[in-house]
């Protein structure tokens, strides 16, 4: 196989230089090397006849520098056919035509391109067939791992893009406190409203669901400890229709996790809006919204 690969590489390089005849000769050498590789090993093949006696011993292997002999070529072609190569007739025809052309200069690619196509096919087929079990296994594992990784990445992307609710807000204090912080599962990230303003944040669900309780986690603006929501109202909508509402009040600005559970008990909910009607300190905001 290595000789065949080298001959093919040489043929490609010669073709790039515009040397058509030389390229063809190199590909024919590749053809010879491939058939040589497919020829069964004489020691390994000890055919027996029907009575269980060993047949005549296999002939000595031919000198690798000489062209493959006719019966050895037949053995190679038989081995290729046995391995499941599909276009045997075409391959045989290519072999015959290549031999007929011999060392005749090739002036037109159109005349030999089909032979080159068969040699290329045989090279690819041989590379697949001659993989050791370990190499084939490694290739298989690599392909499965690649496909698996791609699927996982796709699933994660789809999950992030389209499985989670969309979040919108009336306003934000800055781009460092965007609305999506209320649904990122991280207490330390917060959505903040502009200074001394009421406002709202809305979760737009991908599909309708039943919600019993909405848990709100208040903000405190990290170590500044100067903002928190006070009075809040939660409204659940099914389409354009309001299906549940509840109001509540936080106690103040605290460093620890400060939660407020509001019972809604609504079904078919597609949107949940949380309005911040008053605030502590410099303004309102929320750390998390949990739907239960």
């Amino acid at each position, binding site marked *: 196989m290595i000789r065949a690969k080298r001959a093919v590489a040489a043929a*490609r390089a010669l*073709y790039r230089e515009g040397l058509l005849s030389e390229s063809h000769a190199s590909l024919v050498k590749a053809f010879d090397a491939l058939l040589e590789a497919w020829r069964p090993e004489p020691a390994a093949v000890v055919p027996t006849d029907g009575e269980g006696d060993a047949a005549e011993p296999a002939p000595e292997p031919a000198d690798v520098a000489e062209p493959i002999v006719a019966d050895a070529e037949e053995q190679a072609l038989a081995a290729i056919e046995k391995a499941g190569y599909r276009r045997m007739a075409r391959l045989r025809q290519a072999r015959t035509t290549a031999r007929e052309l011999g060392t005749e200069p090739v002036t037109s*690619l*159109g005349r030999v*391109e089909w032979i080159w*196509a068969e040699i290329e096919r045989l090279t690819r087929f041989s590379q697949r067939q001659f993989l050791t079990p370990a190499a084939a296994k490694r290739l298989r594992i690599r392909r499965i791992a690649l496909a698996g990784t791609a699927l996982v990445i796709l699933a994660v992307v789809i999950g992030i893009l*389209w499985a989670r609710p*969309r979040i919108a807000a009336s306003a934000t204090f800055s781009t460092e406190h965007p609305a999506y912080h209320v649904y990122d599962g991280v207490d330390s990230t917060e959505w903040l409203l502009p200074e001394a303003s009421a406002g709202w944040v809305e979760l737009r669900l991908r599909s309708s669901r039943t919600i019993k309780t909405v848990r709100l986690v208040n903000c405190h603006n990290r170590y500044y400890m100067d903002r928190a929501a006070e009075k809040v109202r939660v409204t659940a909508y099914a389409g*354009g229709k309001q299906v549940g509402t509840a109001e509540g009040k936080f106690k103040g600005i605290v460093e620890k996790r400060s939660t407020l559970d509001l019972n809604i008990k609504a079904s078919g909910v597609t949107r949940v809006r949380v309005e911040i009607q008053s605030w502590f300190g410099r303004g309102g905001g929320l750390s998390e919204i949990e739907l239960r």
Partner: protein
Amino acid sequence: MRLLRDFWVILVIAVAVGLWAPLARLEWFTGHERFSYVLRTVEWASELRLGVLYPRWCPDFYGGYGSPLFFFYGPTLYAIAALLTALGLDPLWALKVVVLLGSVLSGVGTYALVRAETGRRDAAALGAIAYLAAPYRIGNLFDRGDIGEFSCIAVLPVVLALYRAAAREALPHRAYVLAACASAAHGVMILTHPVLGLWGSVVVGLVVLASLVRPLLMGAWRRAGALVLAIACAPALVGFYVLPAVAYKAQTQTARMVVGFYDPRHHWITIDQLFEKSIPLFLRNFLQIGPHVAVACGLLVGALLVNRRRSWSAVGWLGLAFLLIASMLPFAGGFWARDRIPLVEFIQFPWRLLGPAALAASVVVGIAAAALTERFDEETRSSLAIAGSAAFLIVIAWPYVSTGQMLAAEVPRDPDTIRRGMYSATDADEYLPKGVPSPPRSPWRELVIRPSGIKVESTQSEGSHHEMTLRADKRGATADLSLHAFPGWKIDTLSGPGEAKLSVNPQGLLRLELPAAGEYRLRVWFGVARAEWWGLLLTLGGCLALLPLVAYGSRFWPLEWRALLRMKGARA
């Protein structure tokens, strides 16, 4: 993976990353485009989050009235940047990642192209770094801020490398697969920037034409045919973008794109200006391709004297560079006149062709260097390649590798800010729908305006999707919507006594018509316009046309199936 073990490829990638690094250190940069790419990315990302994979409508431009900008702007870089933005990355960083990809692709693509021309890694690296160092390529980013054009000239070397590889490949199946890949890459190039995609296609066409000579002389008619098929299929492959853009151009005000400052006949340059450090148009003259081409010429002359056989092919590339430069000179003004050759005037600035010209000159540098140093030993060649690359970077590139900073706080990065700011992401309002006499002056406050016999119960808007509950008091009640009319708007009557219809009012806004009295729940959204379906058909046709190229000689080729059936029949 094998590529990444090549020292020269790593060097090229390192240079590409290094030339991108100034952008990474800034919050955002002060190019001529300012933050228009950021606005467009945010619009795409917000539509993507709603489930629109290929948005055509920018719902927040013009204060929420919207703009059909994505019918006309190449989608590739916005799709990538918007995906990253929708996944949580800041849009500024998402665009920086796209720019980094473009920078690396420029280098690796040119490396592949020159390596195929010369067979030499060191010369390929020199050619690639020469292209990376080209003032126009760098200035396109840091001065103009035209990320789209920057991306287009990043994909161009990949396209040329693939077509050239297909033309020079001996093995048939491999050659046809390369041709198919070249066609696909060519399509991607068109999708990055429509104008330079068109002109890049002309450059690609010229290179492919030259590449056909050898196969034809060798009697390889099928190969030549495959290349022609591949290049013809490229625009068809991106029919889903090209056809709607051409079909709906007349429904916008794109004529504004080619008048006044944007008339290409006002943008010729002189030979002197190609060597000057500063010109009236640009204080830092990144059109300065003169030294680049001069180096290429000098190297080529030396190479032709020393090693004519190896350097002959560079003459064609240099000819291409000269042809492109000549098209920008004053005498070529007539070529760019309107209505003479279709779509020609949309180039706006003929000096955009300096990108492909710099690439051609860089290929000449690589080929000439390979020819000149053919008889040297490996060590000397490597040292000369590295020294040459360093010279290009220090002498030619260095003055251009810097830009001013724009603070992130100054850049609108969310839909609400874009809407309130009345942004449209273009200077000339060329994508304002034709029926709209002038841009609105303030953002809309209500979705449903001027109701006649209609009471608005509720409305809910999200991007280009709007839902409303209305009560009509009479038959034929109407109301206008604060949305610019354009092909693609759809209406769905979710519930109601009849089917609501959309039409256009004299101000170019959507008008709602309710056929009977009663309560209606309606959904109005920007869907797939008719031309998009035809475009998709064209894309499918292009894919089918390329299928024989990919399948030839593979196990999917029809001859294979016949043989397989014959085999199965024989076994039975």
